[in-house]
Structure formats: C-alpha cells, structure tokens
C-alpha cells in the first residue's frame, strides 16, 4: 500500500523561513549591549580620551606610541599586584565556597526535616546586591574588630578575610542549589548497587556521588573562579582598597582587587590614564577568559558520561 502522504515542506513553514526576524530583537540587544561596547572597548584601549566621543587613536591622532596604554598597564606595579591579590582571593574563595556549598547541599539532600526551609534560607543572601551587602557587613566587621582596637581599613589581613566571608556567605547558597540539582540526579540504582556491594558511605561519596556530580562541580568552580576575579562591589564597599601605604614611593592599595584597580585608574586617576584603564580592562578580560577556559577543560575531563 502506497498511500501518498502529503509532505510538509519545512522550507515553506513561515516560522522557519523567517527565523531571522525572530532572532533580530535579541541579536540587536546583544549587539547594542555587548558586541559593540566590546569592540569599542578594545578600540579605546589604544586611545587617549576623556569621554568616548573625543577619543584620539594613539600614534595616529596624537604623538603617543600605539601600544603606550598597554606598556603603562604592564609597568604599573599596583596593577600587577592587584592581579595576584585577585588570584589569591579567587583560589581561596573558590575552595571555601565549593567545599561548604557541597557539604550543605549533601546534608540537605539527606532526608532532613525542614530541608526546604533551609534551602530557602541559604539561598537568600544571594538576592541582596553586593554594595548593600558590603556596607552592612563592614558595619558588622567593624563592630567586632572595634573591640580589639582594629578596623577593616587599617588591617589588610582582616580586609582579605572579610571579603572572603562576605563573598562566601553570598555565594554558597547559589552554588548549593546547583549541587542539590546535581545530587538529586545521581542514579539511585548506582547508590543501591554500591550499598549492596558493601561500600561505606565515605566510599559511596567519593566513588559514586562525586564522579556523578562532576558537571555541577565544573559549573560551580567556573562560576566561583570567575566571580572571584571579577569581584568589585563588595571590594568597593568593604575596604575600597585601603590601607594604601607607600611602597617604593607608590601608594599601593593592600586590598585592591583587579576590577577596583581598573575603576580607580579610570576615575580616581587623572584622565590621561583612562586609556590605560581601558587597556587594563582588555587584559583583564583575556586573563579571566583564559583562566575560565583552562579550568573548564580541566574539570570537564573528569566528568563521567551517564
């Protein structure tokens, strides 16, 4: 029986034929909000400017060297320092956030009473903006440190740990949600098989659960690493880079992270440094992107296919 079936021609489907109309608004927003500023940002990193509309391309429209902004950025000891400081912060906060978030998620997926309430409570700090959080926490920290005659802005060590505490407090809940989703997706037959085979709960955790939640670990470590590097609001609100003693004749913010360093170069510094700040921002993007990609590929390799 060869019944002729009416063939539906996909090429005539109006939605499929005019796909570009449907992605146009999104593309327009993406280009206006991201692609164009990004290209302009790279262009500005080779310019001298006060505002973006009076930018002059170095080497062509003035007598500066084409790469002078980048040379200045690399020669700025505060920039190099803030990079290493951010790196240290990113690593420390990455470990603390992920270990704690995983632990909390692990506990909350055991059938605990009221675990839904706990999940909500742990997630809530994530809903508060960084600046507000920073100012509130700075009051809390200063209130405590006051008893010991210290303040956040005079003790770089406390400034560092205060940043770690605030960021951890804020992000653990978010990472926890991702881990909970991962933990709930661990196949119960695997856990059951492990149990029947006589695996201890510790062995089950390390040999079954963790390999199965590797996709969550990948995404969480990626997020906390890049968040660590990009941190700005909390840094501005908590310490604003202080204390700032002179090191070899240069005032160096002891708790200034890389994003704040760029901001300070742009606004607090003189305007001839705005191009330098822009160059720093481009370098910053390259660094974060590279680190993020390296980290992604490293943890991806450990993921198991289900």
């Amino acid at each position, binding site marked *: 029986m060869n019944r002729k079936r009416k063939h539906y021609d996909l090429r005539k489907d109006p939605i499929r034929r005019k796909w570009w*109309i449907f992605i*146009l608004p999104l593309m327009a927003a993406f280009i206006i909000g991201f692609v164009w500023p990004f290209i302009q940002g790279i262009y500005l990193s080779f310019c001298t400017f*006060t*505002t*973006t509309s009076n930018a002059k391309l170095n080497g062509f429209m003035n007598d500066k060297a084409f790469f002078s902004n980048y040379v200045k950025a690399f020669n700025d000891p505060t920039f190099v320092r803030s990079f290493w400081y951010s790196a240290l912060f990113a690593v420390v906060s990455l470990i603390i956030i992920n270990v704690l978030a995983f632990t909390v998620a692990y506990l909350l997926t055991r059938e605990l009473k009221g675990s839904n309430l706990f999940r909500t409570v742990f997630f809530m700090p994530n809903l508060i903006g960084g600046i507000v959080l920073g100012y509130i926490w700075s*009051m809390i920290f200063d209130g405590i440190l006051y008893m010991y005659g210290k303040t956040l802005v005079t003790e770089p060590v406390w400034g560092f740990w205060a940043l770690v505490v605030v960021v951890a407090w804020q992000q653990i809940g978010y990472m926890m949600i991702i881990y909970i989703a991962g933990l709930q997706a661990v196949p119960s037959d695997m856990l059951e098989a492990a149990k029947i085979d006589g695996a201890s709960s510790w062995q089950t955790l390390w040999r079954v659960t963790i390999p199965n939640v590797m996709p969550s670990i990948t995404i969480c470590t990626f997020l906390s690493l890049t968040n660590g590097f990009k941190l700005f609001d909390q840094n501005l609100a908590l310490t604003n880079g202080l204390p700032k*003693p*002179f090191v070899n004749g240069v005032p160096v913010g002891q708790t200034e992270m890389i994003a704040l360093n760029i901001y300070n170069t742009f606004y*607090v510094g003189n305007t001839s*440094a705005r191009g330098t700040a822009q160059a720093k921002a481009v370098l910053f993007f390259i660094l974060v992107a590279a680190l993020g990609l390296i980290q992604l590929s490293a943890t991806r390799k450990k993921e198991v296919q289900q």
Partner: protein
Amino acid sequence: MKKFFALALVLCLMFALVPVTTAETGSVYWLNFKPESDEVLQQIAKMYTEKTGVPVNVVTAASGTYSQTLTAEMDKSTPPTLFIVGNQEGVKTWSEYCLDLTGTKIANELNTDAYNLYDENGKLCSIGYCYECYGIIVNVDLLEKAGHKLDEITNFDTLKAVVEDIHARAAELGFDAFTSSDMDGSSSWRFTGHMINLDYVYEERAAGKVWTECPATITGEFVPNFKNLYDLAINNSEFDPATFAAGGHDAEGEFKADKAVFFVNGSWEYGAVSEGKNVAMIPYYCGVEGEEKAGLNCGTENCWAINANAKQADIDATMDFLYWCVTDAEASRILVDSFGVMPYKQAAESTNGFLAMANDYANNGCYVMDWATNYQPNVDAYRAAFVSALNAYNADQTDANWEQVRSAIVDGWAYQYSQVNG
C-alpha cells in the same frame, strides 16, 4: 498578515531603543555636584521655566560620583550644557569641553576675577558662582559656659589651652572640645582637603608667592603645624580616635546637639549650625609664627563651565539662564541664601555669618588663606593614600605612623604630580 505583524513588532522594539530627541528650541541641562543644593536648584529651575518657558533640567550626581556622572553624561546626545569645573585638575580634564567665557555677558557681571579658572592657553574655562570659607566653627555659648571667651583665642597656644581645659572637664561640663573626626568619605575631606591647606598656604607664604599652577613637589615644612592642630582635634573629643577609620559618627549632629564646642568645617554649614546658637569661625591656629594675623581659608570649587560642544541654541539658553540667576532679585536671593554669597554685581547681599567674619578678618588686616588645596594633584588618589595613613596614625599615634602621614602628604604629592604630568 502575520509577516507584517512580526515586522511591525520588531520595528517597535528597535524604535524603543532610539532616544527621543528634544525640539530645536534651546534648553538648559545643569549637572550639579552638590547634593545639598539640589532642592534649591530644582526650585530655581522651575521658577525660570515658569517665567520664560525654557526648560531647565537640573540633575545632581550622587555624593562623590561627579566625575563618573559627568564622564557618562558628556557622551550622550543631549549632554549637560552647564557643569562644574572647580579646580586646575578639572580644567586639565575638561578644558576641551569648556566654552571660552571671556567677555561673555555672564562673565561681565562678575565683581571679582579671584575665582576664575583659566587653562594653559589663557582660556577662561569656568567662573566662580559662589565662594566659601572654612576654619574652625565655634559654639560661643558653650565656650562661655566653660568659662572662656572667644577673644582669648588668638594663636595655637591659647587655642590648645582652652581645648584641653574643656576636654579635661568634659564630664562635668556635659560637652567636649571637638566633634568627631571621621575618616570615611563623608568627613575625611575636612582634614585631607581643608585642614592640610594650612601647610600649602604657609609654604606659599614662605616662598613669597601664591601658586598659579600645581608645583611638582612640596616641602612639607609646615606638616608639623598640621600635626599640632590635627592632634588637638582628634585627641580632645569624646571619641576614641581609633574609631574614626570606620566612620559612623555625625560631627554636624554633635555640634548641633551642643555636644562639642569646636567643629572643623566651613561657611556652607552656617544655615545648619547657626540656628538658636551664637556661632563664630576662627582660623586654623597651628603654631606658625605670626599666626595672630591669620584669617579664614577663602576660595571656591563652585565654578560654572558651559559645554562648548552643546548646540548653539542650548548654549545661548544656558547663558541667559545664568544671567538671570545672578541678576534677578528673587532668584539671586534664593541662591545666595543657599550658597552664602555670589560674586556678581547685581546679586543679592550675603546673609552668611561666617562669610561676614571672613571679611572682618580681612578688614582687620589679617591675611586670607587662599585655597591652595585646589592644586592637589590627582586629588582623589592623593587623598585616598592620605586617609589611609591617617587611619593608621589614628589607631596608633606613633612617630613611625606619623612619618607615613608626612610621606603621604609630601611624597604623595610628588608621585601624583608625576602621574598626571609624566
């Protein structure tokens, strides 16, 4: 039909992103930098619009973010037509955007050239619209309650004697000598911007000439005098200096509530602190020889600049608006009551008691301390390092920590100068 509908939808979305442009008649857009003046300026703007029909839009940048806001606004298709360029660094940054005001009808109304700012080519970039003075505000009633008289204080030694006497008897008197001296952004400028001016001014006087541009280095010869007065202020209040770093005190509130006799601040506080009190302002007495003849610190950072890149119609509208502000009796009255004084021929008379005192000092042959502080190179970065050093010193008043403060003042100046001019 669906096709047209989808297309129309897309076009709608795209047009929504295009800003609405204003009509071709001129309008005024004033980007104001002092949040405390916002209310008055809005009132003035409304008055002018009602009278002439010319729209006047006053936008006030959030405290401490003028530079950021101005940078962003200047890039827009309808940039500010009127903005503030208050010091030499501002001139350096914004000179390209400043209309040359030489010989304009608003500049011709000025009664003094003292507060005008010029760029290196002699272009008149901005003109003062008010001037101010700062020093140490005194609650004369409390001073007398403590058994002292204002004319007792003529130099640092007599000031110190009075201050330390009041501080020692604070519990018995119910008030202390100085208000708090917070180092957070809302208060640190009283010291890193104002009190330190005494070092710069005495350096100028020692060199025998007033700065006309930012010097590459300063000597810090009078930093010990700054220390005299600074120590007096932080160690004679009811608060532990170590707590100043975190901020959270309210110096103005303490002064208004009769908790302290002395308050380091300026003439703009007159309206707030003079209510129901007998107040005076005395110079920064700090132990410099001949300071009995010192006057108050007079100058301004309040200078109007007109955006040269604005549309001609807007420039003309702004010029007319400014002219009206300084010549109209009612408008200038309101502005003078808020700003203290306006140095224009037809503007209303000042009612600010502190500015009157500044004039009295000058008329009695005292030297005016000019605002040399306006030359601080890379001002925000310079002051940030200065604040950091003061925080360490406040927490632990050692010689080593003071050396850091001195370094922030002197070496910091040289470093920031090299950053700006290097």
